[in-house]
């Protein structure tokens, strides 16, 4: 159950988002399904998060608004290409599910989780953290109004995955 995902999907739709790039994450499962089921959106699965930045830049050149979904480990994959959002002032809302926080079962997720916010900020992307389910959609809505590069980090306690078994059961 990820009720925040339904709220985020509504906000994306209301803001006229037509393209949704994503690298899957268990925490984004519901939102990805909602975007795929929505005929007004084209959902594009990516091989690496970097591709989502190129996709979004091209879409904006063509007049389409897009959003990008990923987990925190993907943020490290996009640092250099985030530069294009800043130099060309491309607006983009990036929704990130956090790993490596409280409740993490995989220690290899911890370093990137700890560095996620800083990685965005060194490249000029504004960051907001949602620490309760009800905070996610309003932060996404606010970011969509901002017309700039913005990331919303969804705290791992909202996702609540604590073991490999939980992850498989998502």
């Amino acid at each position, binding site marked *: 159950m990820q009720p925040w995902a339904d709220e985020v999907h509504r906000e994306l739709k209301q803001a006229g988002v037509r393209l949704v790039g994503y690298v899957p994450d268990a925490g984004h499962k519901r939102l990805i399904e909602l975007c795929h089921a929505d005929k007004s959106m084209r959902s594009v699965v990516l091989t690496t998060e*970097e*591709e989502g930045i*190129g*996709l979004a*830049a091209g*879409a*904006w050149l063509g*007049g389409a608004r897009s959003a990008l979904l990923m987990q925190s480990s993907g943020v490290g994959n996009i640092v*250099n290409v985030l530069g294009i959002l800043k130099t*060309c002032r491309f607006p983009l809302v990036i929704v990130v599910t956090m790993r490596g926080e409280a409740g993490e079962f995989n220690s290899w997720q911890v370093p990137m989780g700890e560095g996620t916010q800083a990685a965005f900020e060194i490249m000029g992307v504004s960051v907001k953290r949602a620490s309760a389910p009800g905070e996610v959609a309003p932060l996404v809505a606010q970011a969509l109004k901002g017309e700039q590069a913005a990331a919303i980090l969804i705290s791992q306690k909202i996702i609540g995955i604590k073991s490999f078994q939980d992850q498989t059961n998502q």
Partner: protein
Amino acid sequence: MKLHRRDVVKKLLEKRGSLLVVAGLGSTSWDITAAGDHPLSFPTWGAMGQAAMMGLGLALAQPKRRVLVITGDGEMLMGLGSLATIGVQKPKNLTVVVIDNERYGETGMQVTHTASGVNLAAVAKACGFKTSRVVTKNISLRDTIHRTAGPHFLQIKVVAEKLPLVLPPQDGVQLKDRFRRALLGKG
């Protein structure tokens, strides 16, 4: 007889009409500028590896327009995964051209993987591009770029040569805004 990149790119952009163009960073951005700067060209100065994905975003946003990506072999190799992503999305209006001199032209002409036989056209074909081929001769590619259903991939082998720089505007906001104004009537 080997092909020269500036001649090839000039010919690709001849009578371009409503074609939307994205160029990869470095030599291909200089090539499209040498052929004639245009508001519906988006030359990149960074974000290496993302030219083909920018073409995909543009092609999906503008399904009624033809989109042409012109990039180098080094730039394409950095974003090889994007060929798989494009192969899955199958935009009919997208052509990706790799101007392949088998070198990293901006950093001292070091060889790329294509010099050792890596066949980008075969990769694109395996990823699901509608057509994909290696071009070594001066032939017309107009139908491919402007008419027939894609996605198409063309790996055009060219001479490795150092040419005079012909630089496009560098201000990214200006490049983006002029493109959107020309295409959409807004910045």
